[in-house]
């Protein structure tokens, strides 16, 4: 689940509306106490943060939900047309005499890797982290941009 290849948009995933919706559906079907089990297990979410991929004319934008991270704990790398986002969510120092009521948040290492749909200019990649969402903007390489070719008539 950690590594997921980029899929064509006509795959069933888009129809489903994504993993998080699937998880909500399961939660709804198996109301408590089974819902609690589905929520606390990292099988359906957590270790693989949800991401979106958008392709514009000039760039590819990848957005990923990483709430409560530190900037230095996020690693973004590009290798062979494959964008990899990984990092570690560090658990807070344990409070003394604290009794835990709910523990649904995920702590630990995670990694996502996606194959990009087009060649990108590696030098101009920008990553911005705001309100728990990391947005990676990858401008397309010149050769990947659509080009209009004039037809000449002799």
């Amino acid at each position, binding site marked *: 689940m950690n590594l997921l290849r980029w899929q064509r948009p006509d795959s069933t995933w888009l129809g489903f509306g994504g993993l998080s919706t699937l998880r909500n559906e399961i*939660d709804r079907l198996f109301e408590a106490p089974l819902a609690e089990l589905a929520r606390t297990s990292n099988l359906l979410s957590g270790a693989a943060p949800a*991401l979106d991929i958008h392709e514009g004319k000039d760039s590819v934008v990848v957005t990923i939900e990483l709430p409560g991270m530190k900037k230095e704990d996020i690693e973004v790398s590009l290798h062979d047309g494959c964008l990899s986002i990984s990092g570690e969510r560090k658990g807070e120092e344990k409070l003394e005499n604290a009794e835990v009521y709910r523990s*649904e948040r995920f702590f630990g290492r995670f990694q996502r890797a996606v194959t990009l749909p087009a060649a990108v200019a590696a030098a101009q990649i920008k990553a911005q982290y705001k309100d*728990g969402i990391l947005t990676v903007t990858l401008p397309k390489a010149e050769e990947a941009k659509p080009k209009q070719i004039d037809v000449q008539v002799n």
Partner: protein
Amino acid sequence: MQTTLEKQNTNTRPVPQEYVAPNVNIFETQEGYVLQAEMPGVGKDGLEVTLEGTEITITGRRNPETTAGETLFRERNTADYRRVFELDPAIDTAKVSAKIEQGVLTVTLPKSERVKPRKITVD
């Protein structure tokens, strides 16, 4: 004419909004409770924490996102966040505080002074 107008009105009735429940961690210390909720995409302006009777409601509205082009892959939910919790009567509702940092909401719910454990010195 009248009937067609009425029909249109019923068709445009607002659809009940759907929410997604954020993942939370809740723990209790001697001083009170701490609630952490993961709401990526919610800023300070989109956040609403309401205390009503014996319930606390947290609502988070996502920042509007502009994405040009074609969506190739979508896993993220676009619904706003909402979750309701019941409050321990020992909580001093006047002292509840909340903050949001990088998509994680932290609500601090201190217990009122009279329920805190204290030592009685024996004369």
